[in-house]
């Protein structure tokens, strides 16, 4: 596996925030809704050995994650895409487990970010 990247890319997220807080607040739930659907597709596809489906789904998740600044998920998605491109899915289930964990961590990180910026929250 490649070295672990930070969960969030603060530069990309700051770029989204520069358009106003509503933009990030609107995009985050869209991202997680879509990512949840993609993860639910990956499990059966890996079990059936459908490398092309795994490749395309991982590629899509990598793109949306990069766009939102979810760099940790983007990194594991990229690994899964590369594995699927090779046609050998023997490590794909393990990567999917990592992907699930990282997506949960990413959700927590965005929630912490939101809470820390809410009115009345302690100043950092």
């Amino acid at each position, binding site marked *: 596996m490649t070295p672990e990247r930070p969960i969030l890319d603060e530069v990309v997220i700051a770029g989204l925030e520069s358009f106003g807080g509503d933009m990030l607040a609107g995009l985050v739930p869209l991202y997680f809704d*879509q990512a949840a659907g993609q993860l639910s597709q990956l499990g059966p596809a890996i079990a059936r050995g459908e490398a092309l489906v795994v490749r395309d789904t991982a590629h899509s998740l990598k*793109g949306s994650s990069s766009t939102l600044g979810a760099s940790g998920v983007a990194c594991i998605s990229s690994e899964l895409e590369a594995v699927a491109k090779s046609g050998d899915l023997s490590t794909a289930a393990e990567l999917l487990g990592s992907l699930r964990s990282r997506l949960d961590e990413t959700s927590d990180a965005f929630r912490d970010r939101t809470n820390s910026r809410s009115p009345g929250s302690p100043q950092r």
Partner: protein
Amino acid sequence: MNLGVHQPARGDDLRPSLLIADDDAFVRSALSAQLAGDFHIVAVARSTTEAVALAEEHRPTAALIDVEMPGGGARTAVPQIVARSPDTCVVILSGDESREVVLELLTAGAAAYVRKGITGAQLSETLTAALKV
């Protein structure tokens, strides 16, 4: 929040017109939201076929085309858009494609390429710079 729903063109709208093509719904929404201030987004495509058809229909000032989409992606779309809407400035939106693929697309007529994961401001700057070339 308005994500990806575009206002009709106004008569005094001086923003360059833009077509966005990406098969990922989230990416389409995010790009539309980030670029709608600087560009008049005339069409959003979900596939290669849609991208080519909408480019021909709208003849936008610029087209932002994802490398990988159903129907062949940018490798299919770029030469067709260049042929059917020659005044459109085509910019490639890439993931981590190889140098060879990017060079192939630039040779086919793309003006520039940008990587997913850059900020909206950087993306807008790249598109604007490509239009000036």
